[in-house]
């Protein structure tokens, strides 16, 4: 029940979006999302409600973040610049 599932927005009709969950399409409520979504965006679905918009750029950046962690020297993972990239990437 508590599973959050990401999907990609196909279309938006008012406060309901049709979302593709990699083959399965479902309607998802947009009542509690904090920014507008449009086709092509990802959303995090939780029991039929979108709780977060995931911008496509954030998805691309995730891979870079993993590589940055792997590239950091042992013991340097908490260096200021890495921390700021991990922790302060609000928005």
């Amino acid at each position, binding site marked *: *029940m508590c*599973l959050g599932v990401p999907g990609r927005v196909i279309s938006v009709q008012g406060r309901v979006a049709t979302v593709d969950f990699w083959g399965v399409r479902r309607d998802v409520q947009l009542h509690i999302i904090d920014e507008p979504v449009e086709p092509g965006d990802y959303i995090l679905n939780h*029991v039929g*409600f979108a*709780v977060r918009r995931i911008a496509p750029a954030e998805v691309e950046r995730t891979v870079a973040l993993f590589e940055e962690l*792997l590239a950091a020297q042992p013991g340097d993972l*908490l260096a200021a610049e890495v921390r700021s990239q991990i922790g302060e990437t609000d928005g």
Partner: protein
Amino acid sequence: MADAVHRLEFRNRDQVLRMASRLEQVVRRVGSPIAVMHVCGTHEQAIARFGLRDLLPAGLDVVMGPGCPVCVTDQPEVDEGVALARQGVVLATYGDMLRVPGTAGSLADARAAGARIEVVYSIVQAAELARQTAEEIVFFATGFETTAVTTAAVLCGEFPPNFSVLSAHKYIPPVMEIVAEMPDCRIQGFLAAGHAAAITGWGVFEAFAQHHRLPVVVAGFEPLDILSGLLVLCEAIAAGHTGVTNCFPRCVTREGNRVAQDVLWRAFRPIGGRWRGIAHVPNGNLRLRDTFAHVDARCRFNIDLTGLWQFAAPSLAASCICGDILAGRTTPAACDLFGNACTPTDPVGACMVSTEGTCRIWHEYGGRRSMGATP
């Protein structure tokens, strides 16, 4: 890899192995065993399903805490649902709730005895049921804040007059305090659940991390999300660093989802209450505010529990160790009932019921080398 990334799958084998190798270096550098806790059934599912424990270094113990909202729903709360259903209302709830043992039986038992209980995926379906009938529909609502916010969204919007809610919602941050305060607590850091933090924001853990002088890392649910979260958490432990680090920036910000928070706290207030197997958790339960009394099943109906108390509790439950498992003190491997008298089709304890319960997950994905180990 690009296709997988576009399905939001972060499972690249090469990166996973390099991440695991880095994790081993850190744990070796610390030189003594490290124990960390996550508080989310979705984390445990991913760890078990992808076999991640087999990749973890020997000195690192990743324990599941009270992260299954269904499992920690206390018997009296289940009793309220059972009593209401037996009183003749139609009870709608999530499928996980059906087999959770109450004092005298589960919702599934009540349904077998003739009570009307409907399984729904979302509260939206429960409200839709109410639109199609004149009967009273009560939605038995469980789940942490991520689920509670969807209940709040419906109650702050439009719904039919024959619809009400019985809330057993729970709030995660207070129970982390309880676990950290346990006298035998060996947990040195927490992996916080990314989906709950998507609502509350990672800032909600700052006071906790400061007060208990522990590191907290917010992590997502793909294999690389979890391994990178563990890596940063172990680095923090190695460096003696406390504070909150957000390793799930694609979904979590410091402030969280303000719109959802407004809706959540407009409908609910936190009150203290028992979590099954854990303790009385101050501010750990979410109850509807007085302004929502007209849709609160506890106000709308006289829930009569006396009829349930003539039955004795199941005798096997006395040797159930779900409480210790929920508190992260032990694992299903230490339970004599696990896989024997207690199975998903015939559960004794709550952890075997929900797909987010530790026992259920271990039963489903068992056979991993590391699952046989007790801490």
